[in-house]
């Protein structure tokens, strides 16, 4: 009732007030979200004298970016860490797709003995995080003399049961008629998978690529176990080595290093914003 009694100016006022409140909450959240990024960038261009004061200032009096970034790059092979990250993510992703796509197609469209059992195994695999098989895998790799290799870092992730599950859902809705027609045209199953079915599932594949790259670029647990050679370290492990070596004393160089190692994914995200967000939605909600 009171809503009707309100005069138009008062209701507009109320709308503006609630809008202001909404933005106040959101902006408070934004400050919390952005604070580490802002502080990282600001610190990475400050000289030590300004870092080691208790004053809060968002801009350096003396611009010290060259020295900090130079020192970070000189003391730690940051570009090497980033390159390792690219190699590992790329290697994992390629094998994951090569293994998961045919398997998902077989599960979705072909009738073969043991299909249901395989699907049950895939579903069970979804519940087993890498930390569970980690120790036997470590022992096995140690016996094979494969610790401290790119292969060791990638091998547990070659099979992504999640990719198989996701792609199977997509392939199932692919029309059977088209597959039959392709078979009548004399196409082999191999061609059907890679030239007809795979392109149709492009949104799911792109979503999975984003998911996989983010996960493995940022993974620490497994590389920490199998890698002790700093030359092979992916970004998180490299950052950890560097932070340990600096022991929290050189914040300028540390934040510069953090900026360099965080930048590739963040920039990729800012460029392909929609892809990332759609990808997370799709892989999250299924």
């Amino acid at each position: 009732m009171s809503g009707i009694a309100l005069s138009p100016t008062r209701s507009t006022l109320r709308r503006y007030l609630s809008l202001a409140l909404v933005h106040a909450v959101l902006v408070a959240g934004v400050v919390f979200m952005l604070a580490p990024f802002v502080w990282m960038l600001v610190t990475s261009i400050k000289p030590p004298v300004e870092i080691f004061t208790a004053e809060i200032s968002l801009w350096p009096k003396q611009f010290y970016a060259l020295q900090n970034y130079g020192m970070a790059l000189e003391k730690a092979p940051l570009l090497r860490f980033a390159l390792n990250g690219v190699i590992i993510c790329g290697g994992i992703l390629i094998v994951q797709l090569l293994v998961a796509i045919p398997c998902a197609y077989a599960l979705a469209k072909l009738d073969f003995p043991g299909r249901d059992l395989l699907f049950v195994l895939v579903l069970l695999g979804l519940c087993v995080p890498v930390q569970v098989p980690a120790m036997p895998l470590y022992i096995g790799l140690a016996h094979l003399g494969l610790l401290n290799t790119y292969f060791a870092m990638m091998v547990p992730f070659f099979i992504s049961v999640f990719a198989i599950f996701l792609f199977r859902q997509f392939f199932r809705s692919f029309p059977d008629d088209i597959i039959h027609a392709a078979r009548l045209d004399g196409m082999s199953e191999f061609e059907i998978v890679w030239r007809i079915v795979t392109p149709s599932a492009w949104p799911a594949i792109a979503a999975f690529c984003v998911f996989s790259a983010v996960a493995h670029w940022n993974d620490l647990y497994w590389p920490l176990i199998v890698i002790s050679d700093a030359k092979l370290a992916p970004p998180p492990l490299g950052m950890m080595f560097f932070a340990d070596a600096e022991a929290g004393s050189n914040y300028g160089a540390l934040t510069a290093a953090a900026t360099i190692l965080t930048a590739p994914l963040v920039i990729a995200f800012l460029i392909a914003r929609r892809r990332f967000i759609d990808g997370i939605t799709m892989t999250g909600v299924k």
Partner: protein
Amino acid sequence: MAMAALATPASFASVARRRRWIERVTGLGFAMPALVLLLLTILLPLGALTLLSLTNYEFGGTDMDWVGLKNFQRALADPIIRRSLVNTLVYVAIVVPGGVLGALLIAVLVHRRKQTRSFYEVIYFLPVTSTLIAMATVWQFLLHPSLGPVNALLKWLGFAPVAFLSEPSTALATLAVIGIWQLLGFNMILFLAGLTAIPRDLYEAAEIDGCAGGIDRFLTITWPLLGPTTMFVLVTTMITAFKIFDTVAVMTRGGPVGSTEVLLYNIYLEGFQYFHTGYAAALTFIFLTFILVFSVMQTFALDRKVHY
């Protein structure tokens, strides 16, 4: 004529048989690499882990004896393991409500914005893509007792400085806040997808029925219809939070005085630093049990979603 009429069904049958045979062979062939990898990297290690958990094997050692369930008994009685389990659950108990309700609030507020929506989306999502280990170093500096801006702000507001990460009473909660910071945007995106799926005319209908206020609208339409999404987000957040490792390994290493020792960190220490392989295998099974319980809840959540 008669011969042709006889031959056609027969050759059809043989073509169909041949077709089926090809299908079975290709199916197996396509599934084979996945099956082999599944065996080598998940199933065999799980079997090995089961056997190891029944022994006193230490990696690098030469002798090994069967000890039955001793490792499990020891783990359940071990005060360090109990404490790390309690710490993990406390961490989950902070991150889950914070990360889920916070994300829900932000999603509801962001959902109705038109011009500013993508701006907020990008900023809240930024921590999800950033490398947590690198950002952990920055957080350490932000929260530094004497040099960090957070404490400078507290002092300016007239509060006593807090040594967030070196004080046993605050360290775990501080890590939980960082955990929330990291996954808030992820959950927000999931909630936004759920909100988009709610038909607009429902809100209009509610308005006609006298549900005018924002809170009314939320309680009568948004919350019930968002139920399945909430359930899903809840369980994924529980699993993610239960696997807390990175921030502990980089920022506190279980300290101060064990206040941030969590289950996965203890498994890492026992298995890969002290090489108590048999014991760590038993601990891994305790870890897996929790993950499986959460996963079962997830299956139920997904089921509800299908029927709904």
